[in-house]
């Protein structure tokens, strides 16, 4: 499946096309009105010339707004200026009697063009500003406020606001779509890589490690290294993947954060389903678990096991190792010297989260650190 996503700024293209179509259509209406009313104007020939000016400007804007680079202030201001100028000469061209008789002004609905252009380029506020400028000019040049003139001005203001709003929505929706498509593409690529790695590299590394484990010396060492890489690679491809950008407050899967600690010596046990936690809580909890694992590595290393349990109302992470780790003597010694040991640091982190840390050493079955964080009801 190929999804087409326009280049940045490309989401507005249909809107700019719609503005150009509006100008052409309203220009046709201008021609009809001028042909019908020309004999009642004070200067019919000038009116004809102005229609040509409008046609020329319609062409200029259609080409001008088509390219994103030209949609800046010069063209927007020129657009507004041309229409204001046309409005200013309208009373002279039509003559007071024609205006007083209630004939439509020369530009009729064509004067809405800049309002739509401003709205599409900058949203509701710009649309409203352009509509107010043109509405005020129109009412001022007529020299009188007929109900239809006021209606026209208000319609133009509403059009400016609504089109501006829709334009923003379209652009935002387009950008979201693009992000989603990018994320999907990244996920797909990741899954493809994971499959490839699984089918080839992992199998071979596991085999090298297994067959080499019986050999002594350098070959045995190579097998051990292969085993380490196998574990690292396995953790990498079984992780929950990168978190989507722009979702700072969305719950984070704790398993993904703990996944990076898993290695040849650290085994991670977790449920098959995600363990969602608020991002701050998840990060602090994972950091506390990491501190406990660092401590294992510092005190002789050896194997360690991490267990993640989701009990609904609370999440528990247990870290167990079979080394000396936190012996009661060591904890007491640290406390006596007034040092903030690793244990204290872990307890502090958990207390900040409203949770608890239980640290115990059982002779014969190693040291256990149990971190429990309550889940706040949403």
């Amino acid at each position, binding site marked *: 499946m190929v999804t087409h996503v326009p280049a940045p700024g490309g989401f507005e293209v249909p809107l700019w096309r719609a503005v150009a179509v509006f100008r052409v259509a309203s220009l046709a209406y201008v021609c009809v009105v001028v042909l019908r009313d020309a004999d009642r104007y004070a200067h019919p020939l000038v009116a004809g010339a102005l229609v040509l000016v409008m046609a020329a400007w319609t062409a200029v804007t259609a080409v001008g707004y088509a390219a994103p680079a030209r949609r800046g202030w010069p063209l927007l201001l020129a657009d507004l200026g041309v229409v204001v100028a046309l409005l200013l000469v309208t009373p002279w061209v039509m003559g007071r009697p024609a205006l007083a008789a209630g004939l439509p002004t020369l530009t009729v609905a064509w004067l809405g063009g800049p309002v739509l252009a401003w709205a599409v380029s900058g949203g509701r506020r710009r649309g409203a500003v352009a509509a107010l400028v043109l509405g005020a000019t129109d009412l001022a040049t007529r020299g009188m406020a007929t109900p239809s003139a006021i209606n026209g001005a208000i319609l133009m203001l509403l059009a400016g606001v609504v089109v501006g709003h829709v334009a923003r929505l379209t652009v935002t929706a387009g950008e979201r779509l693009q992000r989603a498509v990018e994320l999907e593409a990244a996920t797909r690529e990741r899954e493809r890589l*994971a499959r490839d790695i*699984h089918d080839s590299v*992992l*199998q*071979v*590394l*596991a*085999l090298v*490690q*297994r*067959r080499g*484990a*019986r050999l002594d010396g350098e070959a045995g060492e190579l097998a051990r290294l292969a*085993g380490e890489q*196998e*574990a690292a690679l*396995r*953790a990498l*491809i*079984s992780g929950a993947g990168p978190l989507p950008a722009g979702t700072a407050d969305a719950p984070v899967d704790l398993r993904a954060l703990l996944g990076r600690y898993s290695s040849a010596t650290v*085994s*991670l*046990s*977790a*449920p*098959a*389903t995600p363990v969602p936690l608020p991002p701050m809580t998840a990060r602090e909890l994972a950091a506390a678990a990491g501190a406990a694992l660092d401590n294992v590595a510092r005190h002789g290393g050896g*194997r*360690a*096991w991490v*267990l*993640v*349990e*989701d*009990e*609904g109302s609370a999440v528990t992470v*247990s870290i*167990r190792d079979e080394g000396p780790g936190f012996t009661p003597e060591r904890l007491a010694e640290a406390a006596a010297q007034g040092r903030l040991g690793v244990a204290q640091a872990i307890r502090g982190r958990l207390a900040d989260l409203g949770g608890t840390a239980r640290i115990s050493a*059982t002779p*014969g*079955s190693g040291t*256990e650190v149990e971190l429990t964080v309550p889940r706040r009801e949403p």
Partner: protein
Amino acid sequence: MSGVRVMVVDDHPMWREGVARDLAEAGHQVVASCGEGRQAIRVVAAARPDVVVLDLQLPDVSGVEVIRGLLAARPEVRVLMLSASGEQQGVLDAVKAGATGYLLKSAALAEFLDAVRRTAAGEPVFTPGLAGLVLGEYRRLAAVRERAPAGTEDPAPRLTERETEVLRLVAKGMSYKQIAERLGLSHRTVQNHVQNTLGKLQLHNRVELTRYAIERGLDG
């Protein structure tokens, strides 16, 4: 104990040969080896293995389907799964479908041979990761139960306190021997507790499948 009849199912020829050689060297009898799930289901009745060593990721059919097919063709066979990619939903599904053992492909040879021997003897072979998955599955079932309206029929299995305790210790990497010492139980009792946790899930899975079949009118 020697002479376990083993069938090896793995789509990687290198692995298949390596595993078969290791088993033969340890005195076991490799009665068949194949690279495809469907082929394995076809030959299992004739080959009469005690244990099938099964790679969970086969190219033709899912691990769950292979396990169901193997058990349908030869109900007394025991399935020991191997996977290269770690504990995931697929492993849990395979256990619910009837596999009784699970090992990572990176496990040491001694660990693998021990697992084959124990699987043949009917013992469950758990990695800490698998214990974590099974614990998570029971917790998921409990959460579903809590959300269900009061009075609805509740066929979902639950763990006893002792079973939960044992499973947690397995998930934290303790051996059955260590667990027996810690809890003051016999090795055999610990093993039974672990076996029960699997048995209840597998039974529940079969009940669910049957119920699904009846609901869809597929039981005739």
